[in-house]
């Protein structure tokens, strides 16, 4: 069963000149996939991710996550849905600056009313997984960009989501940090079967993705499955 399925998905931004950001996109993403959505700026990558993530609504067409039609959910139901099913990693990390790495990771689990024991166990494991076990009490401003993005990955995984959506996760990172983050994401995908869908410009990321979907003017112009390098 597909974890994400879109059918004739369209999104038009109204304005003086209406812009069709997503144009008739039919897409299926299976469990355990490590998929990169690529394309030039303005090709509709972020808009597609936003619609898949339930952050934005399509103008027409449908998007299903685990067979749930997102169009049928109200705004409040979408918030609950995101909390339960989707992990987000943003380009500029977007951590809560007043919380430590541990508290940032724990935050989503608190919103889910997870028990203290489960929280402690999972947060420790996740921060260890992303190699930040010695930075648990550091606040975002005390961490490098790469470290912050690793906390963001840990946070995205804390809620045990069905998949993680990452919008240009390596865009603000130096090459070493980007490699490091990519290693972590790939390992989580392989060993724990976590589905990653991310938009990127970064050729190193594209090279390591197993599936590469290329968008241009909102349309899928290629969908390639490649061997891992």
């Amino acid at each position, binding site marked *: 069963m597909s974890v994400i399925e879109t059918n004739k998905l369209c999104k038009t931004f109204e304005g003086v000149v209406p812009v069709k950001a997503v144009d008739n996109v039919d897409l299926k993403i299976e469990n355990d996939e490590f998929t990169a959505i690529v394309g030039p700026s303005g090709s509709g990558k972020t808009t597609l991710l936003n619609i898949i993530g339930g952050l*934005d609504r399509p103008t027409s067409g449908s998007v299903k996550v685990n067979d749930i039609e997102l169009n049928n959910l109200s705004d409040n139901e979408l918030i609950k849905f995101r*909390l339960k099913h989707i992990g987000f990693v943003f380009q500029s990390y977007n951590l*809560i600056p007043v919380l430590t790495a541990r508290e940032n990771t724990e935050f989503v689990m608190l*919103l889910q009313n997870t028990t203290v024991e489960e929280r402690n166990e999972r947060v420790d494991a996740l921060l260890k997984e992303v190699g930040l076990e010695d930075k648990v009490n550091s606040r975002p401003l005390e961490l490098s960009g790469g470290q912050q993005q690793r906390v963001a990955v840990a946070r995205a995984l804390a809620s045990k989501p069905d998949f993680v959506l990452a919008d240009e996760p390596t865009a603000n990172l130096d090459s070493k940090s980007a490699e490091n983050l990519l290693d972590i994401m790939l390992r989580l995908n392989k060993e724990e079967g976590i589905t990653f869908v991310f938009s990127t410009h970064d050729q190193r990321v594209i090279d390591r993705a197993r599936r590469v979907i290329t968008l241009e003017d909102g349309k899928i112009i290629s969908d390639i499955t490649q061997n891992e390098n």
Partner: protein
Amino acid sequence: MIFKVAWRNIWRHKIRSLVVIIALALGLWAGVFSSAFTQGMMNQKIESVIRMEMSHFQIHQPKFRDEFDSKLFIKDGLSIQKIINQEKDVVASSGRIIAMVMLGSANTNGSVKLNGIIPSDEAIVTELDQKVTTGAYFEGVKRNPILISQKIAEKYKVNVKSKVIITLQDINGEITAGAFKVVGIYNTKNGMYDEINVFVRRSDIANLMVAEDNVHEIAVLLNNHDLAEPMATKYQKAYQELEVLPWMDLSTGMRMMIEMMGTYTLIIVGIILIALLFSIINTMLMAVLERVKEIGMLMSIGMSKPKVFFMILIETVCLTFLGAPLGLLFSYGSITYFGHTGIDLGSAAYADMGFSNVIYPSLEFGDYLDVSIMVIIMAIIASIYPAIKALRLNPVEAIRKI
């Protein structure tokens, strides 16, 4: 965790938060202290009115207060006074003969209010003996002693042992006069009162007026201000042919002034709270608008709208609750301090209006509670607009903001 986030958010901009907290504390202090000042002024005025002028209630013939007609006396007033004195809540009473008379000295003459009193009773009811600044309280002059105020002494250019002439109507309407010798000079610090009142012994004036055991006024002092109205009602029922009025009805201006001061205080506190309300709204709005992206992210990762609303509410309430106790504590400290030392307004003009020129601010616990409740309500109101602003954010647009 939401509490933790809200609390830490307050300290993101320490200076800004401290400025709001201090503004809140000072604003609250200004409001509470001005209330205490007004309350203190009113308490002193009430105390002065009760202790010097009205006592807790008075008994007269119904029209006496309007006409000051010497014929409108309370027959056998001294016997009624004795009955009243047996009441357990009555501290003392004073039966007075009262007349508007002409007072003449070697230099000038004019109209004054003559009070014929029993000195020992009056000493308890009005503590008049303690107001004597020069001479003595009906001691040292055997025949027709008179106690006058500092103001009258200055106006008539008389001193202790000076002789003055009093001309008045007796209870039959006949003109009569008597020579009196100044035994003492008093000063109540209530200019309006001092300007007009002189005191002689009831027995001396009773002889002149042929008043016998009759009096024009019985002033009764109780052990509790709150008993003034019920006791007046009780004696009104007992002596229906007479007029028995509690102090607040004897001085209609006082009742009006108490109500006016209450409204005035409410308006002042209200204005201060509204100013603080907008200051908090402004700060919280800034805090929300500069965190648009962060709030958008919180909604993206699944923070529900009620929780976002709650977070902003807690931030506002925390900010208020840091400033408010500080303001209340500062208010309590300054009110307690000045409640002991008093605030000298330095002008005798207040005394001329019947107010003391040294004010002792005072505020009851209930008033602190009222202000605290108002502040809590204000904090909640102040959080609503910024919180609604946060709720209206579209996560997608919010996270795009730089």
